[in-house]
């Protein structure tokens, strides 16, 4: 019967319509900012909505903004890159070594229990991680870790300090790492297991140790491992609340060392959308839309790369 099929088709096209409209709306809303700010948006770290209580004045291409407005998102781009990079720098080696240990050195039931608990932790809300970061991690960093790094690594300018707060690059990267880890380990362990049954016996029969066998099998799964990293990156890029709560909320000042406050695109969006209301010209909102558009594009690119390599996407809760 064609009629029921038609109704279904109409209904199933609604999400497609929504997806397309997300793109269109963001693009439409960011056009003023794209033209007004130009490349400045990506090269300057000064985020200045201008004197917002005055009348908007025209700027480049005729788009209007408050006098003196100039929006540069370099700080947020940098912060996103830095926190994601640091988080992945922690997550990747940890994932690899724990995969080898869990798959080759522990009995099945135990590794499955670990897997199940990982799934649980992927479901903990972002704000709860943020709360833990604020109340536990940051004081810990400030009281114990930073004095140590200042003392031992202080000869490197970035570590000299002095640290005045626990929030910043380190805290937010650590929290981010904790949140990305369940995802990447899930995919890597899954890929490992699917190869393990076929190759473990022949590799071991040649006289390899468990670790050597584990390394070899991970090597066979190289593509999926890289895919898992991209998928983890996609998650890290979009993480908002936990980062917002632990990054220090920097505006208009680039970090000078690892103890400085920073900001990421997602966190900045959450923090700055407020300020869009008082800007009568609407340019702040447009700049934020451009930021959101850019964030969406790189997140989608990362996820697409991850999907291409690992053969799947990851939804929270379906990891193990």
């Amino acid at each position: 019967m064609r009629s029921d099929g038609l109704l279904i088709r109409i209904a199933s096209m609604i999400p497609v319509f929504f997806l397309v409209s997300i793109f269109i709306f963001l693009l439409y809303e960011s056009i003023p900012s794209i033209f007004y700010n130009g490349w400045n948006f990506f090269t300057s770290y000064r985020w200045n909505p201008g004197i917002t209580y005055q009348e908007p004045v025209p700027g480049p291409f005729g788009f209007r903004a408050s006098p003196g407005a100039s929006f540069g998102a370099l700080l947020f781009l940098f912060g996103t890159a830095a926190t994601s990079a640091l988080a992945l720098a922690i997550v990747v080696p940890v994932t690899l070594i724990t995969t080898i240990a869990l798959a080759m050195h522990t009995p099945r039931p135990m590794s499955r229990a670990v897997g199940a608990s990982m799934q649980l932790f992927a479901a903990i809300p972002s704000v709860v991680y943020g709360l833990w970061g604020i109340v536990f991690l940051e004081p810990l960093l400030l009281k114990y870790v930073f004095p140590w790094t200042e003392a031992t690594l202080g000869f490197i300018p970035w570590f000299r300090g002095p640290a005045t707060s626990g929030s910043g690059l380190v805290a937010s990267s650590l929290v981010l790492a904790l949140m990305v880890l369940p995802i990447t380990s899930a995919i890597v362990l899954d890929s490992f297991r699917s190869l393990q049954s076929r190759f473990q016996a022949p590799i071991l029969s040649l006289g390899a140790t468990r670790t050597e066998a584990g390394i070899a099998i991970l090597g066979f799964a190289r593509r999926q491992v890289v895919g898992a990293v991209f998928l983890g990156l996609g998650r890290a890029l979009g993480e908002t609340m936990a980062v917002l709560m632990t990054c220090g909320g920097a505006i208009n000042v680039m970090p000078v060392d690892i103890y400085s406050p920073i900001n990421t695109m997602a966190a900045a969006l959450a923090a700055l959308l407020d300020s869009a209301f008082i800007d009568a010209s609407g340019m702040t909102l447009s700049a934020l839309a451009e930021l959101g558009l850019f964030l969406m594009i790189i997140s989608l690119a990362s996820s697409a790369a991850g999907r291409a390599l690992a053969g799947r996407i990851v939804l929270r809760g379906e990891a193990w």
Partner: protein
Amino acid sequence: MVRARGMGMRRLRDALVGAAGLAISALLLAALLLVLAYVFYGAALRFEPEMLLTMGNTTSGGLLNAIVGTWLLSGLALAISALLAIFVAIDIAQYAGARVGSLLRATVDTMAAIPAMVYGLFGFLVFVIYLGMGYSLLAGSLTLSLMMIPYLARSTETAMGNVPKELVAAAYALGASRWQVISRVLLRFGRPLIISGALLTVSIGAGETAQLLYTAGWNPGLPTWFTHSQVGYLTYVVWAGINQPTPYPQGLAFVASALLVGMILVLLLISKWLEGREVRRA
């Protein structure tokens, strides 16, 4: 030139890697357990009965409005997204050809990859401003539902795929139409897994904040209508409360966190139990 690799070195490396890997795994589990323990312990320390029994804003009073608000938002979002996601799943599974099928799949996968704050921004622009709902239950739920669609579509598709092929074939053989097969066989026998997926999705929705910050607003009481009336929700309390300098709001934040984690845990456990039962049956 041939030189043997010392077996001693190899065993040492094997033992070291094994030990290090296991130690790190244990450390990770401990860290994650620490997060949970810290939250629950902190909540227990700061708990006061009025937190659960009264409404409040984020600096005083209780969490009742936020609890109700979280359920309202998640529930309504689930209803909206379920409506759409199920049809997507049905279309992919039964009706769509290769091209429409991959379009739908690509859509679902793409929607899953969009950052939460981008949904929040979109929801603010479209639902709150352009469609004029203002901060409201409807705006928040609609935004949340967009995020939920991929989860539900995926789990429903899996649920329908889990139904034994023989049942489907038998139904067709008895002369059932396509829609009848879907409604009477696939959706019926797939129900436990669909519900399991729905519970999982709600648990994720309950923990979201970014989508709601600029769509649901905040309300020290309960919303009066779907539009133009703001809603309070637990994750907002966590965020706002912990940033206050005084202890009581921080206590609210802790208790709200404990409530969230508790709710999510329960939903997850039920979801996994349902799933486990189905898998065992099949």
